[in-house]
C-alpha cells in the first residue's frame, strides 16, 4: 500500500451545473473540486472525488484529474481511463490499474508532491494514456519519502460523483 490511512466511502455528490462547459462538452474540474471540498465531512484529511465525466481546465484540452497542492481535495475522471475511449474493447484490469495510478497521483499532490521526473513513478506527469500505462503502481523512493514525512494518522474520504 502506498498510502496507509483509513478510507471511508461517502455517498454521491451532485455535479454542479455551472461546471459544465457546453462549448467543449466537458466539465471544469476546478469548479467540481471546489464543491467537493466544500461538502467534505469536517473530519476528513483528504477527499477524493471520482467522476465519470470528461474533465478540462480552461487552458488545457483535457485533464485526467486535478488536485489542490497541499490541500485536501483530489478529483479523478474515469472517462479517459477506459479502453473504450480509445476505440478498444473494454478491459477491467487495465481500467482499474489506471484508476489506481491516477487516484494516487492526485492524492500525492494533496500531500504536497509535485511532478517527478522518473517515468516509472506515480508522480510522473501523464499527458497521454501511454504515460499512464508506462508508469509503475508506486511512488519512487524519493516521492515516498516526501510523502511519509507529510502523512499523519487521519482519514481519507472517498466520494463518488454522479
Amino acid at each position: 500500500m502506498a498510502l496507509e490511512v483509513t478510507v471511508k466511502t461517502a455517498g454521491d455528490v451532485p455535479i454542479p451545473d455551472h461546471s459544465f462547459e457546453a462549448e467543449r462538452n466537458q466539465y471544469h474540474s476546478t469548479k467540481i473540486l471546489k464543491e467537493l471540498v466544500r461538502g467534505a465531512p469536517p473530519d476528513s484529511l483528504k477527499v477524493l472525488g471520482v467522476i465519470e465525466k470528461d474533465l478540462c481546465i480552461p487552458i488545457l484540452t483535457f485533464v485526467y484529474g486535478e488536485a489542490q497542492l497541499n490541500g485536501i481535495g483530489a478529483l479523478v475522471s474515469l472517462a479517459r481511463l477506459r479502453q473504450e475511449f480509445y476505440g478498444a474493447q473494454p478491459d477491467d484490469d487495465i481500467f482499474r490499474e489506471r484508476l489506481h495510478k491516477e487516484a494516487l497521483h492526485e492524492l500525492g499532490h494533496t500531500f504536497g508532491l509535485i511532478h517527478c521526473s522518473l517515468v516509472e513513478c506515480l508522480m510522473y506527469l501523464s499527458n497521454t494514456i501511454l504515460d499512464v500505462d508506462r508508469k509503475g503502481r508506486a511512488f519512487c523512493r524519493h516521492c515516498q519519502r516526501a510523502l511519509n514525512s507529510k502523512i499523519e494518522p487521519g482519514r481519507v474520504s472517498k466520494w463518488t460523483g454522479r
Partner: protein
Amino acid sequence: MDRKVNILVVDDEEIVRDSLSSWLIDDGYEVAAAENGTKALEIFPSREWDLCLVDLKMPGIDGIQLMEEFKRQVPDQLVIIMTAFATVDTAVKAMKEGAYDYMVKPFNPEDLSITIRKIIEHQKLVRENIFLRKELKKQYRLHDMISKNHKILEIFDLVRTVAKSNSTVLIQGESGTGKELLARAIHEESLRREAPFISVSCASLTETLLESELFGYEKGAFTGADSLKRGKLELAQDGTLFLDEIGDISLKLQMDLLRVLEQKEFRRVGGSGLITITSRILAATNRDLKKAIEEGKFRNDLFYRLNVISIHLPPLRERKEDVPLLVEHFIDRFNIEMDKKVEGVSDGAMRVLMEHDWPGNARELRNVIERAMVVAKDTRISEADISLPASRKEGTNGKSLGDIEKDHILRILVENRWNIIRSAQVLGIDRVTLYNKIKKYELKKEVGA
C-alpha cells in the same frame, strides 16, 4: 537543473492565470502571474524569467506591445504568445516580431509539456552559447515542408539523420499529407542530391505498363517496342527512386519488386543483361498496409523489405497549429507565382480555416488558398473568399439523408484523390453506382486536387 525555472504568466482572465499557474507549479516551476501589462512590467525586473507566457489580447497594453517592452529591457527574453483560434493570424505575426512561439488556447497537455521542455533545453544551450535563435526558427522547415507540430518536427530530425544512409524508407499517411515532399526532402538531405530524384505513381498504371515503366524494355521486346527504353529504376541510378502509392500494385509486381530489392539487380523487359541497382528506394502509401497484409493484398516480406525506416505523417486535422504557418507559406508562394501582394487572411477567414477538418490535408489547404488568392479583391483574404465543402463538424442536424450521402461520397473521393475504383471499394458500392451518384449529386473534382 541547477536552479528552478521561472515562468511569468500574463493574462487578463483570472481563470486562465489560475489554471495555468497551478498546472505549472505542480510541474515544479516557479510561477508568477500578472493580470495586465502594467502589473507585468512591475514584476518583470524582479527576476530573471526563463519564459514569459503572454496573452495576445488584453485591455491596455496588448501582448505584442508587452513582448516588445520585455525585449527592450532583456533582448533575449523568451516569450510565448497565447492566443485564441480567432486571433491566431496575429500570433503568427508575433512570431515574426520575435516571439519564440505561439500556442493556441486551450493547449493540448502534451504540447505544453513539450514546449516547456524544449525551452529549458534551449535555455541551457543559450547559456552554453552554442545555439543561435536563427537556427531555432529554421527547425520549423525542412526544404518545402513547414511545421511546428512536435510529431512532424521529430520526423524532420529523423529525416536529417536517415537521409545520409541508404536504407529504404516507407512513408505512410493520408492523401495530401506531403509524402512526396518528404521523399524529396530525404533526397535533398542525402549525399545523392546531385543525382536524379525519380518518382513513379504506381496507382495510375496497369500491371504491364508499370513493369515497363519501372524496368524499361529492349527494342523488340513486344509489339510496338521499336526502340530501347530505360525504366525509372535505371534512370534513378545513383539517385533516389520514389515509389508512390506502393499499396496499389498487383501481387505479381510485388513479387518482382521484392526480388529486385533483394538481389539489387534487374532486367529490362525482353532483355537478358542484369543491371545492378545503385539507387535508393523510398516508398509511400495512403493505405493501411498492415490491414492489406491481413487481407492478403500485400506481401508481408515486401512490407518488411520496404519498412526498414517507417515514417507516419499525421493528418492536418491532428496538427491544426500548423494551419496558420501553412497559410502564410502558401500565400508567400502564390504571391510570387501570381505576382500578387496578399498580406494575410482576416480573423474570420482564419477561424473558418482552423475549424475545417481538412480531409484532403495540406494539399486541400493549398488549393483553398490558391483559389482564395485568385478571387480576393483585397490585400487580405476574407471569409467570403474561402470556399470549403461542408465540414463534418457542422453535424448532421437538419440534413437530409441525401445531403449526408453526398457529403460522405465527396469526402471519400477527395481522400482517394478521385480514384473511382478505390473510392467505390471504400464506400462498398460498385463503380457504376458511384458514377451514377457523382452525376446525381453533380460532384466535381476540384482543379489541382
